[in-house]
């Protein structure tokens, strides 16, 4: 393996950072959901990189990665359903339109 583990981890860390930005800075709930998917993606990359370099004999990490992808998919399904409901009720999925509960 010519490319070291650290290189992959750095890519994952940068993905994570971008996800952080998207989750906080995006106004539309769908975009926030995308940001969360980026975060999950960073996790997957981290996992697979560790798997390949630390313990490639045991495929358990790939199961973990599959679980992460599943989590992402299901979150996407439920999240979009929630947003659809919100949109049907209030014609908006901008998160700052939903700030009545506070204090």
């Amino acid at each position, binding site marked *: 393996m010519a490319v070291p583990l650290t290189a992959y981890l750095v890519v994952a860390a940068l993905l994570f950072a971008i996800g*952080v930005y998207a*989750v*906080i*800075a995006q*106004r539309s709930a769908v975009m*926030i959901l995308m940001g969360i998917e980026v975060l999950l993606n960073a996790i997957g990359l981290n996992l697979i990189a560790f798997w390949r370099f630390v313990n490639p004999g045991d495929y358990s990490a790939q199961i973990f990665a599959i679980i992460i992808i599943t989590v992402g998919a299901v979150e996407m399904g439920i999240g979009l359903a929630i947003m659809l409901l919100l949109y049907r009720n209030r014609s908006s999925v901008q*998160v*700052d339109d*939903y*700030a*009545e*509960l*506070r*204090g």
Partner: protein
Amino acid sequence: MTAGIQSALLLMVPILPLATAGGLALAGLFARSGDGRLRRWPGWVALASSAFSLGILLLLWGREIEVSGEWLGVSGLAVTVALESTELTYFLAVLVASISTLVILYSIKYMETEAGVIRFFAELALFVGAMLALVLAGSWIVLFSAWEFVGLASFLLIGFWYREAASRRAAQRAFLMTRVADMGLLLAWLHVTMRLHTSRIDAFLGSLGTPAFTEAELLILALLFLLAVVGKSAQLPLTAWLPAAMAGPTPVSALIHSATMVAAGVFLLLRLFPLYEASPWALTLVLWLGLAGAVVAAIVATGQNDLKRLLAWSTISQLGEMVFAIGLGAPLAGAYHLATHSVFKSTLFLTAGAVDHGAGTRDLSQLGGLRRSMPLTAAVFGLAALALAGVPPLSGFWSEDLIVAAAAAKHPALGLVSVGLVLLAGLYIGRAGVATFLGTRRSPPPQEGAGPKDPGGSMMLAMLLGGAAAALTGLLLHPAVEGLLPFAKESGAGAAWRIAAGIAGLVGLLAAWLLVRSKGTASLFEPLPRLLERALEAVPELGMRTAEASSFPLPRFEAALDGGAQAARGLVLALTGGAQRSEAFLDGVALAGVRAVEGVTELTERTESRVFGRGGDRAAELLSLAGARLRPAQTGRVYLYTLGLFLWTFGTAVVSLLFWR
């Protein structure tokens, strides 16, 4: 009587009223109030339960009984539930039971026109049961639970007239302020239990001689317990709730705020006296705390115009005296005074209630001349007042005598102060009595035709019993008291002190009579009483408002200095000009008073507007201000929530760098 029957009987003592409370509460769910014929039965039921408890206690005279069972025992920790009837606890239980019986008897008549009688008596019975459990408690867990229940019942009772805002506020305040102090008790007993792995109180007392606890630990424990005492017995600085609690019905005041609940603090001190003996620092603190409380409250009492508030401050003062006595190392005197005070003070409250009922007001400036229309009430009041003033041979004399003796033995100055306290007691109670019953009526009766008259029925009966007790307890008990209580008798002081104490009360009464005759019901030591009262009420907010408070003294000092100068001028004039100039002297004194009052008025106004104007409970206000500062953090904007979340991740990463090595 076998041991089993004895235990069962002892258990019955607190359980009987508690069960009655439960039954009445259930009945209250179904019975609707307003049925005239059935109005009185709850009272009789409650009376019966209380009387039964008293009867059982009397049946158990002179027996040391203990009931205990393991509540839970896990991982080396044995938490037991225990009741025990030893000398001290038996003595107090009898006291509590008898006063309760008296007060319930009184309430049957007193409350007959009120709505919600069932609720009232259920709460009263709950209180009595909890109080009995409290004094009989043999383990911390029972003690604490009963302690809390007493607080809860008093919360309900003070708030009985829940439709009045003052009542509600007073109830909440009483509960909360006493509960603040309870935390001291909780922490202390938790610590003890954790250390000894048992929750028996006598195990703790027994361990005091052993090295189970270090000296510092003992001091901390003593202070924690003292915190509980201060809260429950309304000692400095947590006095504010007691006068406010007078918003409740009079029997409640009589029961809770004179004889029983507030005495629980003193009881705790007595129960744990060995701890304080083992921790001299704490004992000294107890002494000074009690003394300060007694003096301050007595002074405040002289300025009160509301009869019940006056009695409330008097109670604080008397409790202070008890604490003082214990601080002196004379628990016998304290305990004795606790007993006599319970009797005469509850009698005083009962008569105050009768006055309120009869005359429709408790304001001293509107009362007067009631001796003609309410002769029996006046007589009972007089008897109890004389007892309070320590006039021999009434009950108060015997116990106050002991206190004075103990104080004098400690230091003559302390003796003087305690004599002064008796004097003050005579002064304020005399003022109250004179203003209420002597002279002429200052304001017309509320309704034509229905002038004030002595109450009838159970109220009168209870008052008469109380009066008799107030007169006789001391006399009857005095020979037996040393046998009844587990404390050694203190070395007596000289006869001079005893005589001084006996005379001081009379002097106070006389002075009060003279003063009321000449000046009416004007407050005596103004501005001091009102100032002190305000200050004490402000205590919970002291920390927050120190800065503001620091600006207060200025105008007051100016005014007082100004008035003082006038007085001095008058004095000089009086001394030089003879009798005819004495008028000018009095003018000067009056002017000084006026100036001081002006200053204080300004001060209190500012205090009112700045400190109390916000309404609500002060301490809660202070804390909820902090809450209000925190609330904006909950912005409702989800992007800020996630921002916070990721700030944490960043923070974690930064913190992890600290572990770099």
